[in-house]
């Protein structure tokens, strides 16, 4: 019988893929960098609206198994809508930030790859079975291999790409092995069917197989979030990649990892959480501590942000780990933990985008003193040393203010209310779930976190030591052929402003995020 495909549910996925193709076509037809950017951005916006619209509608399921209708591989419920909208908005944000970088890169292909990655993300949001999950994750990650290596004249970028590629491939192999073992033990690939199979007991001898499979799947997925044993790739890749791509990596691809982990743990392996729990809790604690400790010693800006995002991943995993390790494993405790994770992820993603946005705008504009004249090509600008950011506030106070707000938000202190409420959500869920010790560890890590966020923020307002060369005047850097064009500063500034405003609004009304995240229990 022909499968009744619910095309309305698939609309966002279609639109996303359409945007990708459109990007290529416009680049072919119009061949103007700004036009391609604009089209892709419009596409991303439409996807966001569509996903949100579909989300408000009734829950739609397609591609369901014949015999077990509950186990469908594509489910458009409010959670998926939230995730898909987030992916679209983040891609929109990153596109905005690419104003500077795209001048040195092939705009058409750049936009296409970003749109393809967005498609992977959107499909990931809706996927409810292992195969679609893995495929979507791959579609999300593969374009990033190319994008990371896009700064074709710098060795760092090539090295970053290779690191990212090799570690990612190995992790995918581990995930697939885990999925294979689970399939071998339970014969189910759909998450809900898997949960049912696990719930009514796997035949005696296959239990060890299933548990090994579960943990291996988790290990592979947790690689995406850059949890500690699998985090070594993150700093090198972020530093090597062009700035907007580093932003994309630390926000969107991390969100993808979180969503995947949440779906697999919350829906798929729910009956077996006592097996998976200790591993998750261990990952969370290790990630937090190592992330924060190493970040203390970083000299380069993007590497510091990379290590801080590793630490933040620890905070994101903490509620899930606490729930699994904690005592009361009732369903509402699970809802509490999942809501906390998603809420923290949403807060984190926004603040991180604002942080990277500020770095992009600061590095892009002629504010930095040590922008080497040789590489006139704006795309080659990397995160640079933290020392180069000294005294930036005098030249561009608003951007420096946004950056400070973002840093303080990441540290979780009041002016950055979003960060503060994120910390409160995590501690509340930890103590609600009975894992008091984990709450104390999160608390101590927050203190270490501030120890490295604050010096950076203060250096923005530090005064320029006389010895350093004065800032290269803006017009000389632009050079004849490289007119900044109306696109670059306007787009990036707009994107940064939008993200900061959203961060502030959410800061004052955290309940919006909490309501959206609360729907995830489904």
């Amino acid at each position, binding site marked *: 019988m022909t499968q009744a495909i619910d095309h309305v549910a698939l609309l966002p996925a279609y639109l996303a893929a359409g945007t990708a193709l459109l990007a290529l076509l416009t680049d072919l037809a119009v061949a103007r960098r700004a036009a391609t950017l604009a089209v892709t951005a419009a596409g991303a916006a439409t996807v966001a609206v569509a996903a949100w619209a579909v989300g408000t509608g009734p829950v739609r399921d397609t591609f369901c198994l014949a015999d077990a209708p509950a186990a469908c591989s594509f489910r458009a419920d409010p959670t998926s809508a939230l995730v898909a909208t987030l992916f679209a908005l983040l891609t929109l944000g990153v596109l905005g930030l690419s104003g500077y970088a795209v001048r040195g890169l092939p705009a058409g292909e750049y936009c296409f790859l970003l749109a393809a990655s967005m498609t992977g993300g959107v499909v990931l949001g809706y996927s409810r079975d292992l195969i679609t999950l893995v495929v979507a994750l791959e579609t999300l990650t593969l374009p990033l291999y190319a994008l990371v290596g896009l700064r074709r004249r710098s060795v760092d970028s090539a090295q970053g790409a*290779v*690191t990212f590629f*090799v*570690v990612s491939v*190995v*992790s995918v192999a*581990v995930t697939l092995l885990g999925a294979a073992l689970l399939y071998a033990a339970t014969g189910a690939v759909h998450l809900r069917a898997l949960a049912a199979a696990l719930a009514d007991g796997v035949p005696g001898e296959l*239990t*060890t197989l*299933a*548990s*090994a499979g*579960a*943990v*291996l799947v*988790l*290990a*592979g997925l947790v*690689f995406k979030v850059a949890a500690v*044993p*699998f985090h*070594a*790739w993150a*700093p090198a890749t972020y530093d090597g990649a062009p700035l907007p791509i580093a932003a994309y990596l630390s926000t969107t691809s991390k969100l993808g990892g979180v969503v995947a982990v949440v779906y697999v743990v919350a829906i798929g392996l729910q009956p077996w959480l006592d*097996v*998976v729990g*200790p*591993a998750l809790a261990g990952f969370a604690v290790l990630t937090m501590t*190592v992330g*924060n*400790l*190493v*970040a*203390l*010693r*970083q000299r380069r800006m993007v590497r510091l942000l990379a290590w801080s995002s590793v630490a933040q991943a620890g905070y994101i995993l903490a509620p899930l780990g606490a729930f699994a390790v904690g005592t009361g494993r009732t369903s509402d405790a699970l809802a509490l933990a999942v809501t906390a994770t998603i809420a923290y992820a949403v807060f984190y993603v926004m603040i991180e985008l604002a942080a990277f946005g500020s770095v992009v705008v600061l590095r892009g504009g002629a504010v930095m003193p040590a922008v080497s004249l040789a590489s006139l090509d704006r795309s080659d600008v990397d995160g640079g040393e933290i020392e180069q950011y000294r005294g930036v506030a005098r030249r561009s106070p608003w951007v420096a203010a946004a950056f400070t707000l973002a840093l303080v938000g990441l540290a979780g202190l009041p002016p950055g209310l979003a960060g503060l409420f994120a910390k409160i959500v995590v501690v509340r869920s930890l103590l609600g779930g009975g894992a008091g010790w984990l709450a104390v560890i999160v608390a101590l890590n927050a203190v*270490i976190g501030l*120890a490295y966020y604050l010096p950076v923020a203060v250096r923005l307002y530090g005064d320029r030591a006389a010895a350093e060369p004065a800032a290269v005047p803006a017009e000389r850097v632009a050079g004849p052929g490289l007119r900044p064009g109306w696109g670059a500063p306007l787009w990036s500034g707009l994107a940064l402003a939008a993200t900061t405003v959203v961060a502030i609004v959410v800061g004052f009304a955290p309940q919006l995020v909490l309501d959206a995240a609360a729907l995830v229990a489904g």
Partner: protein
Amino acid sequence: MLLPAVPFGAALAGLLLPPLRARAAAAVLGIAGAAAALLLACGLLVALDQPSEQSRQLVRFGHLAVDFGVRVDSAALLVAVAVGVVALAVQVYSVSYLDGDEGYPAYAAQVSLFTAAMLLVVVAGDLIVLLVGWEVMGICSYLLIAHDRRLPEAPGAAVKAFLVTRVGDVGFWLGVILLGVHTGSFRIADVLAAVTGGELSTATLTAAGLLLLAGVAGKSAQFPLHTWLPDAMAGPTPISALIHAATMVAAGVYVVFRLYPVFSYGDGVLPVLAVVAAVTMLLGALAATAADDIKRVLAWSTVSQLAYMVGALAVGATAAALFHLLTHAAFKALLFLAAGAVIHAVGSNLMSAMGGLRRPMPVTFWSMTIGLGALVGVPPLAGFWSKDAILHSASGGAGWAAGLVFAAGLATVVVTAWYATRLWLRTFFGLSRSEATAHDPPPLMAWPVVALAVPSGLLGFVALSDGFVDRLSTPVPADWTGAAARPDALPAQPVLADQALVHAGGFVLLPLAAAAVGIAAAWLVWQRDPATDPARALGRLRPVFEREFYLDGFQDVLVVRPVRALARAVRRADESVVDGTVEGTGRGTVSLGGLVARAHRAALPRAVVAVLAGALLAGLAATLGAAL
């Protein structure tokens, strides 16, 4: 209620309002305040027949209330009058004594503040208010001692004075709190009722008594805490007269007088009092014999006279003690003011620079003679009556304590006579050793001296009138009922009843003889060689007395230096240990971060190893976990 308020208002006005800082205005304000207080006290003394009490609640801490209470009775008023008189005299005297000093306005205000505080202590109805007055007096004495800018050792003396009294005050605080806590209220009437009513255990009473005693010893410069008084002479002389002769030092005696049941009910407190009194009497007198500075001689004599009063209290002769307090206030203030005049004229404190002032300064000479006479106890003068009353009650008292006080008293009479004559002779007789032309002090300074000479002369006769005795009796709280309930605990009680202050008969001769012996001895020694200091007769003992039995040195070594060393040690410990741990944790975390960062400074394969090893370990853990 008004009594302490008036000088307090004057003090505040003088201290704060800048327009009034002009000299004349300040002087007028000071004198007016003192005079008003005196008039009020006299008025009340005359009008009042039975003790009146009013109080208004100030604040309530939990169920312990503190109320601003005033309790006025005859004894209090008498002391108030004395304070008023001396304060007025000092205010007038210092107008001319400090005519060159630009700090005068502040000085005058501080004196009025001091008078207010003293009056507050005298009429206080509540222990906490008493404590307030007590401490404000301490601070005023600190401010006034340090008043003289030119004198280098003045600030040090002021700090020493305040700190030593403050150590005593700690005991006073604790005593007051102990009493307040156990009786449930700070009102003196309630406390006394509770004490006599037997609600407090004797142990608490003894503890409270001893603690209060510490405070009194501090304030009235008794044995362990007396070292500050001689140094306090660094302050201007009128201040020494007011604070360190008449009022503040007497306050301690007055407080014991006021809270007498507490001391008498606590067993073992009175004997301690007696011992302290005896020791201080002798100590003060002997140290005075060797002192060369005229003001230090008077200071040591104050210490020993106070010991007399404390001794009287120890043997239960409260009325005699109070009577001696009044007379002592009068003649000691007189002596100080006169000494001030002499110093003013000669320009130096040391007796070795004086001599032969009899003719150039007749007024000062005669007033000084009356004062010294009263101090020694020459019959017609006030000192004789009060000292005789104390010695009589001491001799009549039961127990070894009274005997000790009597013996010490007699010995001190001899020594007092000796140093008084020595001072008298060295200052006014023999050839003048000072080059300055001595002359009588200006009228403004002379009148107060003369004014004070009158009471030190005639006060003795007042004691003869019978009405005087019952006024001095211990303030019988109106609701003091349960006296009969504890007959055995009231040894001192019967003595109080027939407090005949004046009694003729053989007994009077003994102290007179002792005085005569003292005077004769001093005269003989001086006669042989008028130029040198009779103190040389003491021979080897002289340096010992001069250095005041090295007590000051002991105090410095035993208390001051160890505290300072402890402070340095604690500071070093606090900064290195406590701060060290905090800084240490900070540095530790950063270096740990460095360690972990170095572990990451490797090539790509280490990352892949981490991934695979991590997966392997997780898998193993899970399988082993599931298998178990």
